[in-house]
């Protein structure tokens, strides 16, 4: 994190990763997955956000998001999804960050404008609780990243980070999900959209069926 990235893509990725870490914490808090005392109020980009205090939780979120850094920088990551599962490990809700980093963006990044745009996500996120479905008991959650192509093992230096990633066994919905947009931004070097995917009303309820 502290290494100096020279390219604008590196800078963007840095900002995005940081933002994702905060946003994921906020989402987990928002869903009330853990008791409220597992979080503490912090300020990020001048917005009040919730940060996890439990070291393991912090560690998980941090490692996942920083692990994404090289791939975001290369524009390989298409979506970063926070998935909430029910007890049969069937997704019941997904928070999708759809990313597109302009690889040909050459000029100097105005970090402030990027932050300004990202701040809107956090603000919108804090008030989007009514859009979500309440979690059932025995639920779980995870962060999944969707790559445009599989991360290659080409770069020696990336090997360790690439191996952190395991293929997901996320079950898929049989119906196209319902999408509720939360926030979109189309600032030039970075396009990001946050939306909610929920199973459609007609999604069969008995998941045990093959």
């Amino acid at each position, binding site marked *: 994190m502290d290494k100096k990235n020279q390219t604008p893509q590196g800078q963007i990725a840095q900002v995005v990763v940081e933002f994702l870490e905060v946003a994921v914490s906020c989402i987990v808090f928002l869903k009330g997955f853990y008791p409220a005392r597992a979080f503490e109020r912090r300020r990020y980009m001048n917005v009040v956000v919730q940060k996890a205090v439990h070291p393991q939780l912090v560690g998980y979120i941090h490692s996942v998001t920083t692990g994404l850094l090289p791939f975001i920088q290369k524009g390989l990551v298409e979506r970063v999804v926070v998935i909430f599962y029910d007890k049969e490990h069937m997704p019941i809700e997904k928070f999708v960050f759809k990313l597109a980093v302009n690889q040909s963006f050459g000029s100097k990044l105005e970090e402030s404008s990027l932050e300004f745009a990202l701040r809107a996500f956090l603000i919108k996120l804090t008030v989007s609780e*009514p859009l979500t479905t309440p979690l059932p008991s025995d639920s779980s959650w995870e962060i999944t990243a969707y790559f445009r192509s599989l991360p290659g093992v080409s770069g020696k230096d990336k090997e360790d980070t690439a191996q952190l990633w395991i293929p997901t066994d996320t079950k898929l919905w049989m119906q196209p999900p319902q999408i509720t*947009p939360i926030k979109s931004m189309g600032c030039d070097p970075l396009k990001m959209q946050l939306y909610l995917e929920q199973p459609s009303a007609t999604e*069969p309820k008995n998941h045990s069926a093959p």
Partner: protein
Amino acid sequence: MSSCSSGRRSSPPMAASPGQKRARGDDPASPSKPDSDSAPAKNPRRAFSSSPFADFGSYMSAKNSKLAAQFDADAAISAATPGGVFAGVSIFVDGFTIPSSQELKEIMLNNGGRFVNYFSRHTVTHIICTHLPESKMRNMRAFSKGLPVVKPAWVVDSLAENRLLSCVPYQISQHNSSSRKQMKLSAFFAGKQKGMHHQGDRNDESTDPDFHTVSAQAGSQDQNESCEKEGSLMNAEVAEDSLSSVEREVPTSDERDGEDFAVDEDYSACETAFSGSMDDGMDDKLYVADSPDAMSMCPDVCGTGSAGSHLSLGLLEKDAAKSSSRSHSTLTDPNFVENYFKHSRLHFIGTWRNRYRQRFSNLLQAKSSKGNNGHMEKKKIIIHIDMDCFFVSVVIRNRPELHDKPVAVCHSDNPKGTAEISSANYPARDYGIKAGMFVRDAKTRCPHLTVVPYNFDAYGEVADQFYGILHKYCSKVQALSCDEAFLDMTECLHDNPEEVTQRMRNEIFGTTKCTASAGMAENMLLARLATRSAKPNGQLFISSEKADDYLNTLPIKALPGIGYTVSAKLKCKEVEYCGQLRNISKDALQKDFGKKISNMLWSYCRGIDHSVVEAVQETKSVGAEVNWGVRFNENKDADNFLVNLSKEVSLRLQGCGLQGRTITLKVKTRRKGAGEPVKFMGCGDCETMSRSTTITGATDSLVTLQRIARQLFAAFHVDVKEVRGVGLKMSKLEHADSARGAPQGNMLKSWLGSSSEKLKNQCREETCLLGNNDDAGTSELRASGSSRPSFTGVASHSSKVNVTSNRSTRVPPVELPPLSELDLEVLKNLPPEIMSEMNDMYKGKLHGLLDMTSRDEGKENNSKSHVLPAVTQNSVPVSNAKLHGYGECRDSMHLEKQDDIKGASDEEFSGVRAANASCSRDSEVVDAKGVTRLDFMPNSLSQADLTVLQELPEDVKADLFNVLPLHGPRDPTCSISNVTENKSQSDGGPDDPKHPVICLLPGWVEQFRVSSSLILNAIAEQHTNSISSRPLSSILEHVSSLLPLCPNSGSEEWNNTLSCLSELLTEYVHLKVESDIEELHKCFRLLKRFSSVSDLFLELHDRILPLLQDSVSQHYGGILHF
């Protein structure tokens, strides 16, 4: 087929061991011989065994004989008269029936029939069952062994009538079931039920009115548009159209002889009868039908007798009502593509086949099941029959005064016109007039040539009659065109082919008043050639002996498939007749013409043709192409055209019940340097390009087609001004049935397995069905009435579909996307394992759609019941309801809020807007001002006439520019550049990083501003007020206060506004879908809110929503949730 006699009873019943069945399954000789019954005793396997039940077969035979003995004993007790109703009938009951198999057995016992417990080809005469599983349906023959499979109602009805009824109407046929299934699905597509009802005339009728009335309207429209046509003639045509549509309603009867329509005798009468609206016309007809005059007016209606006419009159009323409601949309929205195809002869021929297939599918089906029996040893007799100059003779069949005069059919009667003659009668041909000739050339050759317009309804009608007769004589008919067919008489012929043909031709003439020529030979080639020689109105039999002589003198050009090039090449070698061609060896031919053509030449000149008469030909592709009158000025025109073309193709696909995977777009562009074509509006010398794309899931959806057509068109990068023709084609076709087959199968299962929520919905729908049986519903029910017993099983399903169709017809203009499309679109984005689970997907979609429609209607009633079942997403419907409330009562709160927003924006941009007069905190005032000013003063110079401006005195000019909100005091001479500058100003700003989300659709503001619609003007005004660098949603937000400006539904302004707005939104969707669904979501929420108050926005919303969902599902694999 029934081979059992009552005498069989005394003989020991035969066994039906499985092995035996296999061994003699197809032995046709044995069943009728009594001694064959003892065959099982000689079964070698049995001879080996010492114990009575050494193997299964012997056990079964013993069991069967015992059962038969018991049955006989019972029969003896019940003291049935030997000649009971069911004497000679032996039934086997398969599966659950009503009445039960036990009851059926009882009936058989008491009425001299037999009841067999174990099926055997040889003891059973009828199989009784209510419904069959798919697999048995598909292999009907294998299952039934050729025995009739009838519904139990046959037994019951026969008993009631006390005579053995024909079992044909009770038969379960493959065809019935499949068409029923198709109907269920197709009923879903509102108003597009065309072609889905295969079941018979009655259904045909219900679809026909659309066709007819629309074409009649088109006719009258044309009248306005084209000055080439004589008013009276057109009128007469309209009248005739409606007349024939009347006739179509009447179930086809043999009584319908060749009596004249009143049309020709009494033009004026018809004109008055039809000059009013369609409704009036129909009423008149209903009225006069009782008076004796009516006999001459419409003999057909009267001909069918009172009962028939009652029914048809009822239908008429209904159809008339329908047509009048329809006329609004068609008349107010003239549509080139539609009209083009309505007036295209090629289109008529092209689509005629589907119509034919639907109409005669019963016959085709019956025939194909018999087809395999193959009497190969018999000498083949093929008849080729062709109507004589069909397109002319049909039109003039009721105008005998024209029969011996030269007549040609053409769109236009303009003597200088370049319209092409499509058909000319024989007197005209004597003048050298040929098809494809321009009218002006024809007129120079024959100045007194009568040119008559097409009458497609009459063509359809005559073609139907023609094929009706052919099918009566022969079961193996290959339709080549609407007026031309091959008949394989090998099996059907009992006497002299020439006599039969003569009778057939006489009947055709008697019925249609048009002549036909026929050729007979032993293969298709010779038959076709014989017809050519026989024409006009003759017949020729080329027996195999005469074939050689005939061919010897036949010019090569006459052979089918030999065109200009080949014949020219042969002519170079001084080969002009088939006889000469025979002297050339196959190898020599191959050198010159390649393998395929040389083979063809070689065998054709010897009269060899191995092709077989095939009744059903698979459709390979479905498409539509327009190469006449295609001229675009801007991209918008081309886009609009593509949309219409896609619509046409989509309709055709749905009409055939097909879906395609490959979409091909063909574009003809003017060849460089080619001038304007000789033919008026023709395509001239063109370069043809085509591009295609294949998608994963087959589709017939309009939205998908449109999207892909647009993409393909854009990929050509052609100048739209150069485009002379466009064709869109779907290939890799699949049956819509099979594409959705799997989901259907599981319908019931998933329904049963679904949650209580679904059940609740279901109940509601069913009550709906009971409550309002409108046309669609009842006709649907009536159609399936014949299969009442089976109806119970699928009641839930079909009723549901009915409801859907009802709903969607009621919700005024909703263009619901065909259900399939959504599925298939989504399919594209799904991994393959999910594909297998499409079933549930389909079901779900259906539901989602239902929910949506029901939500659109009666909000108050349903919103409650919606919140309850939708527990999983509790908060959303609530907010939805809130939205509704919000939209409905635009109270002070709302206004306040708006003021706030406005105020804020005002502050923000106050600097820029200082000069603007309409800067005010009170939005109401703004509006009032805006409205009043709109009436007097154009908002921009683009609206003002520049020449006028230039003539004005300087001081007036200055004043003017001060007043105009968009222009400061500037020099009017540079006003043009002002305008353009303004435009770029208002659209500019995408570079502004702070406001990246900007409408960058060029020119729409200008367009809105100059439009005649108040609301558009106001929107444009809003846009400029907000300094344009804002997303569409923020502009829409302000629209709520402008809603009272909405034009009335149906007016021209309404249409303009709607098309402008929908165009803007469509572009906006395309623009934003990838990057900003939040914005689109916002826009559509706003639209939805407006739609509760304004019909315009309701229509707009419903029109664009499918597109939005389609694009969203393409990009995100899901649908937006509102």
